[in-house]
């Protein structure tokens, strides 16, 4: 807020900005190449949201940015080779467009790792200088490069590059504007930071949120490049100022001929989203999507109304006060602008925050759970005389959000036993049944905002050792050991910052091959308590 006000008070700068005659979104044929890559090679840790950021940018440009779905290429976790091929294809199409006399605008967005002057797409590399030169010579009239990666400010190191809260493009006409604009999420010596709470990188999140309408300071229901950048800059710096990595400063550079600000998104005609009337209380309203991520933010001032464009769907609304939350739901109908009625929000404690990870910005962490399991085979005769239903105690060690956000890798160990008996031609043979299992699970977790609940589902491979010892000493002990693949699904309910309740179901396949080959299945139901380190 403070920074934004500082920008607002920078009268001459804003005056120039608002005086711009924006080039309308419909004035050009627009193309985009959007790439997100969570992997950066052997010496880097995987990013959690780079691909997700790319998806969000893709969504906002195709929904509001005038980029037709056929004119955009979305590359998720693809190599440098794929990137160059996609860029070449788009350049050819842009050149063809221009030959038909149309003006062309090209947006290149990248979210991922960067280091030592190179973008890192997995194990492959793209030299920043080469990409910048390629972008500078691209056949489009207007070329916009947006780089959300560590040290990405290196791309703007050139004449006119600035680390500043806003830039202005003088307006004297829009039809002949041509040139290059480069935006980076961080300075050349800074890391670009991600946030669990917003489910993305700070810069891309605010860029998208701004493009959806919250950056529309001119209230003309259009967001220009200048507005979007100024908004993203202010919010990124503000939100990262207190972080351990320190404040993150976006940068820009441009080389333009002609004068016209660029309208990136236009929602004047697209009346689908949320409208916050002027009388609603001031503050920041967070619009949370079904996955628990903040889809957009609305920075409501005391005297003005606000509007943002969002796709139809059900959203949660959160407004944070000093001592409590105000939360509620809003349904955006297709093609409808839905008014947010703040009075229909309800008071709630901070523990009910619907935002994913709101209680802890945990990132990758470890978890240990302890619980009880009931296991039973589906087949009745098998259950009655071969492998009886068994209770077990077990513990599971999980690596959460390490490989990728929402991905869980777990190792579990459980042991239990029961008494059973087998009837062989009238001879009842009582026995003591024992079981030991060790498994590994790979699961995805979706943190919904039904309180602090998350659901997860995945696959599991377990080694299982079952044995029985007969009461009759003349009958030898028996055992069976094998691997059993299965699926797992469950619910996790967070009780506090460190403790959570777990409910889990598993279904496994077991090939029994002693007497004959028999395909068997068994289920497990577990309940337990988890402790997050």
């Amino acid at each position, binding site marked *: 807020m403070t920074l934004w006000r500082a920008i607002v008070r920078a009268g001459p700068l804003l005056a120039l900005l608002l005086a711009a005659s924006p080039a309308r979104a419909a004035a050009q044929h627009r193309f985009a190449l959007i790439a997100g890559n969570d992997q950066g090679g052997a010496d880097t840790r995987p990013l959690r949201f780079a691909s997700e950021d790319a998806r969000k940018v893709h969504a906002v440009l195709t929904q509001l940015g005038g980029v037709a779905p056929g004119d955009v290429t979305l590359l998720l*976790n693809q190599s440098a080779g794929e990137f160059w091929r996609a860029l070449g294809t788009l350049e050819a199409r842009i050149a063809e467009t221009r030959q038909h006399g149309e003006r062309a605008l090209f947006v290149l967005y990248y979210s991922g790792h960067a280091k030592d002057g190179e973008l890192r797409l997995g194990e492959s590399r793209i030299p920043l200088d080469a990409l910048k030169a390629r972008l500078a010579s691209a056949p489009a009239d207007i070329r916009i490069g947006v780089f959300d990666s560590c040290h990405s400010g290196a791309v703007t190191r050139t004449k006119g590059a600035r680390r500043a809260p806003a830039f202005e493009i003088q307006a004297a006409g829009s039809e002949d504007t041509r040139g290059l604009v480069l935006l980076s999420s961080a300075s050349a010596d800074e890391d670009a930071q991600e946030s669990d709470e917003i489910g993305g990188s700070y810069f891309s999140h605010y860029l998208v949120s701004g493009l959806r309408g919250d950056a529309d300071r001119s209230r003309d229901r259009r967001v220009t490049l200048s507005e979007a950048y100024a908004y993203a800059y202010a919010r990124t710096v503000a939100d990262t100022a207190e972080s351990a990595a320190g404040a993150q400063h976006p940068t820009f550079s441009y080389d333009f001929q002609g004068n016209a600000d660029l309208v990136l998104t236009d929602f004047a005609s697209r009346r689908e989203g949320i409208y916050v009337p002027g009388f609603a209380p001031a503050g920041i309203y967070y619009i949370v999507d079904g996955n628990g991520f903040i889809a957009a933010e609305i920075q409501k001032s005391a005297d003005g109304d606000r509007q943002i464009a969002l796709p139809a769907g059900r959203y949660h609304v959160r407004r944070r006060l000093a001592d409590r939350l105000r939360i509620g739901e809003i349904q955006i109908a297709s093609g409808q602008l839905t008014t947010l009625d703040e009075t229909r929000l309800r008071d709630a404690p901070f523990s009910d925050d619907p935002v994913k990870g709101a209680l802890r910005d945990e990132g990758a962490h470890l978890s240990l759970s302890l619980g009880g399991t009931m296991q039973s085979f589906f087949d009745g005769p098998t259950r009655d*005389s*071969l492998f009886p239903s068994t209770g077990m105690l077990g513990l599971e060690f999980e690596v959460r959000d390490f490989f990728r956000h929402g991905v869980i890798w777990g190792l579990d160990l459980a042991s239990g036993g029961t008494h059973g008996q*087998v009837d*062989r*031609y*009238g*001879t009842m*043979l009582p026995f003591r049944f024992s079981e030991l299992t060790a498994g590994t699970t790979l699961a995805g977790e979706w943190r919904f905002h039904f309180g602090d609940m998350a659901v997860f589902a995945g696959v599991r*491979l377990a080694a299982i050792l*079952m*044995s*029985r010892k007969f009461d009759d000493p*003349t*009958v*030898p002990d*028996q*055992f*069976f*050991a*094998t*691997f*059993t*693949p299965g699926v797992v699904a469950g619910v996790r309910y967070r009780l506090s910052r460190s403790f959570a309740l777990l409910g889990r179901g598993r279904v496994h*396949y*077991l*090939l*029994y*091959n*002693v*007497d004959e080959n028999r395909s068997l299945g068994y289920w497990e139901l577990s309940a337990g308590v988890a402790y997050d380190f």
Partner: protein
Amino acid sequence: MISRRMVAIALALIGAIGLGGCGNYSNEDLDFQLALPDQSDIAVKVQLSASRTDSAEYYLATRNAINTFNAMVVDLVALIDHVRGNSPTSRQGNRRIWGPFPSEIYPTWEIRVVMDRSTVSSALLHMDYWVQLRLIGQDDSTWVSFLVGAYTSQGSARTGQGDIRLLANDVRLAGYRIDDDPGLANLDNLHVTYNNAAYPMTVTMDIVNLPTATTKSGSYTYAQNQDGSGRMTFDWQGLTDTGVPITANMTSQWLGSGAGRSDLTADLTPNLTNQSTPLGTDCWGVDTVATYTYRRQGDTTTGFPDSCLF
């Protein structure tokens, strides 16, 4: 990115690992193991009182006969105990095979146990089994049966009627050096039957020795009642020290308390014309001390005939 090929390889790997299940966890194996006689199924289980220096002579003879019988049972059951204590080497429907294993005594030979199961009815189980020998490296047609058994359950898998034949002379003729075992040196064959499905539980053992042996044959019959009382007969046919053929019979009976009676008879006719002559009788009390004794030799009696319980 995970390709379809990687997924296919992973699934194949999981499948292959799954096929690698191992163990002996089997209900059906139990049928085979329960069908084999345990020592307790065949042995004389009567708990006779401890002998004393003044125990009745025929009481001591009865104990010796029981001990000899039980020792033979131990040796016989030892041949098939391996089956009860271990998982079969191969399973083929209603057949289980243990081995072949190299003979510990003669490593050029190998031994296997084969069991076949057939279901008489939903409640009755029948098993046939063989302990077989052959020289290592020879084909399947050369297996020689050393022991042949059969068992039919009655009431439960564990109770029924059994039949075991030890074919010592067959393996002797096949070249196996069975005569190195002093206990088997003169044996032609041995036949045991048992019925433990209902009282009286019975066991018979018929021993046929080679014609060259001094003892031609012997047979035991044993019956045990639920109250602990029992009866055992031992028939013996052979040659006296002077080379005269002789048959003898000892019949012993006892109550659950241990008190009992034993009679010794023999055919003393030159050509064994089945004329049984009483040679002696002992009756004894719970303390195994004779209460009545008769001996043909010297025509002597001691004690009171009325003290005999049988």
